């Protein structure tokens, strides 16, 4: 089976393998990561990875769609020394791969270092060490038929190290050799979807690169229907639509989707969608609260893609009141509703905070209801780095929903995890109750299990954030002192 060398962009390391797997699943092929002692194995933090794929077409698909891939090469050889690499490169089964280019193929040859600059003179020496390949074609630096490349991978600490001009085999971790197959045509999308160049965005808009990664986790493609129930300014809808899917967006606050001009004129989300040529794939937008939603039925979406507001810049809200009204206040409200003043429209109902761990539990139940079998829920979960435990994720799961990827974007004291959950069941479930947790005991009368009792690190995330994640305070029962009356 042919092997391919992948050169990754050195960002979002934990997202690499999930992205490869999602794109492979979307196109119905297998990706196998080649484990090897000297190289990278499946260590996702190193910039190179060797994959086994059934077909060259699959490698090209990965290069067309994976945001984190810089380029893919046909893999010939690797080693901890050049001697090792050359030996491998001359094995009969490898020789067969490059022999076809010997006679009459124009080529260019690159030697480049990762974390280290290789002096030109040394580069030339390396190129000459490949002379046994005996390429007869012309060297063409502009439009070669093939590009051969040699990557030397160094540790971080060699970044600024200088070396003597004549120094040979240096202290690289590993050296790789291969032929360029395809440069990533997906990575430039990061620039295309740049938030700063977008016609409409807000202060909580998701950065382009991450929204594209999210879109790939949904396996977006033509003919699929996706949903963002916390649509906001639509950051994730654009890439998903770009990949061909239809997207529905809802938000409790319509102003987020509309923008400054309010109810008059074209909504901001549609203006941005137009800029990307995907306005027809924004299926519809609607203002409602996910906890009081108008869906007539379930099982219609291929994926939910969303970044729930977790409270650093905007806290999540649901319909209701923070404090129960007195009977007299309720009566006044009722009278007022029956005889609204003319300046009172549109009516804006009261909202109350929606605690993150409750929101996430509800989101998973909701996803199980509205997704088709095998559909995916892709969302960000913020969490406190020191307190996070793997079991935190389990507190939100329910029967028929399974975590298939969990990748951390680390900001230091806190981080956010991109969670991908698959609906593994074909059974139909009822819509979730979105029960109010402040009413004890559980309305549904279900006894709490061990899992229920575990308090995940993302609980009360907002309070923890504003307390600077100090342990003592965060450990206190409900985090916030009671509000003085």
């Amino acid at each position, binding site marked *: 089976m042919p092997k391919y060398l992948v050169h990754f962009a050195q960002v979002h390391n934990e997202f690499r393998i999930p992205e490869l797997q999602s794109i492979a699943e979307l196109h119905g092929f297998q990706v196998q990561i080649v484990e090897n002692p000297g190289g990278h194995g499946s260590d996702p933090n190193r910039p190179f990875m060797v994959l086994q794929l059934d077909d060259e077409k699959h490698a090209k698909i990965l290069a067309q769609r994976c945001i984190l891939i810089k380029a893919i090469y046909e893999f010939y050889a690797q080693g901890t020394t050049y001697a090792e690499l050359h030996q491998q490169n001359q094995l009969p089964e490898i020789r067969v791969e490059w022999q076809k280019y010997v006679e009459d193929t124009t080529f260019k040859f690159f030697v480049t270092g990762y974390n280290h600059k290789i002096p030109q003179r040394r580069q030339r020496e390396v190129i000459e060490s490949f002379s046994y390949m005996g390429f007869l074609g012309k060297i063409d630096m502009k439009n070669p038929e093939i590009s051969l490349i040699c990557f030397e991978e160094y540790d971080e600490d060699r970044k600024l190290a200088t070396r003597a001009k004549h120094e040979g085999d240096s202290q690289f971790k590993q050296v790789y050799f291969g032929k360029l197959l395809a440069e990533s045509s997906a990575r430039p999308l990061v620039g295309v979807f740049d938030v700063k160049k977008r016609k409409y965005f807000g202060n909580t808009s998701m950065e382009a690169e991450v929204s594209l990664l999210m879109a790939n986790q949904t396996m977006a493609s033509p003919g699929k229907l996706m949903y963002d129930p916390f649509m906001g300014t639509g950051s994730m809808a654009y890439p998903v639509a770009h990949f061909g899917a239809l997207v529905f967006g809802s938000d409790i606050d319509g102003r987020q989707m509309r923008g400054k001009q309010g109810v008059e*004129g074209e909504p901001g989300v549609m203006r941005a969608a137009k800029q990307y040529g995907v306005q027809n794939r924004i299926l*519809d937008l609607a*203002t409602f609260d996910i906890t009081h939603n*108008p*869906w*007539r039925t379930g*099982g*219609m979406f291929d994926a939910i893609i969303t970044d729930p507001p977790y409270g650093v810049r905007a806290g999540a809200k649901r319909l209701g009141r923070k404090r129960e009204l007195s009977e007299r206040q309720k009566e006044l409200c009722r009278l007022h509703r029956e005889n609204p003043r003319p300046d009172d429209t549109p009516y804006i109902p009261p909202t109350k905070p929606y605690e993150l761990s409750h929101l996430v539990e509800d989101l998973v139940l909701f996803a199980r209801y509205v997704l088709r079998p095998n559909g995916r829920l892709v969302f960000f979960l913020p969490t406190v780095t020191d307190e996070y435990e793997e079991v935190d994720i389990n507190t939100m799961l329910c029967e028929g929903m399974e975590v298939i990827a969990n990748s951390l974007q680390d900001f230091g004291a806190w981080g956010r995890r991109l969670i991908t959950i698959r609906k593994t069941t074909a059974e139909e479930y009822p819509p979730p109750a979105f029960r109010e947790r402040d009413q004890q005991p559980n309305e549904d009368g279900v006894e709490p299990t061990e899992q229920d009792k575990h308090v995940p690190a993302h609980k009360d995330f907002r309070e923890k954030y504003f307390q600077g994640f100090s342990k003592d305070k965060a450990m206190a029962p409900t985090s916030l002192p009671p509000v003085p009356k």
Partner: protein
Amino acid sequence: MVRLITHNLLACHVKNCTVNNFPLEFKNVQLEIREAEFNPDFIRGFLPKLEWKALVDTARQLGDTSLPTEQPEMIDDEFLQNLHHVLLEIHVEEGSMICNNCKHEYPISSGIPNMLLAEHEIA
């Protein structure tokens, strides 16, 4: 926006409004027709999710009579094209949707329906 595919999936969700709460009835609508990409597989795949009678009635009310009263057993390309047009190309830009049961009115402005419920409608 507010395409008929969406309209076919939305019901009145006022508390205790559970019978005759679908379909919502369009009132004072302004329509726009906008071309959309035709994907026969998507349309075919979505058929089981549709409430056929509600869709046909609504389309007729808005002036499109291309769909048969009964969902046909044989699905041909012309049918899929018509269904595509009804589901995805007719946009209600202004107006409102009214629940035949509780009379709640969901206003639509610039293509976005406001489906937020008032306090007394959720508890």
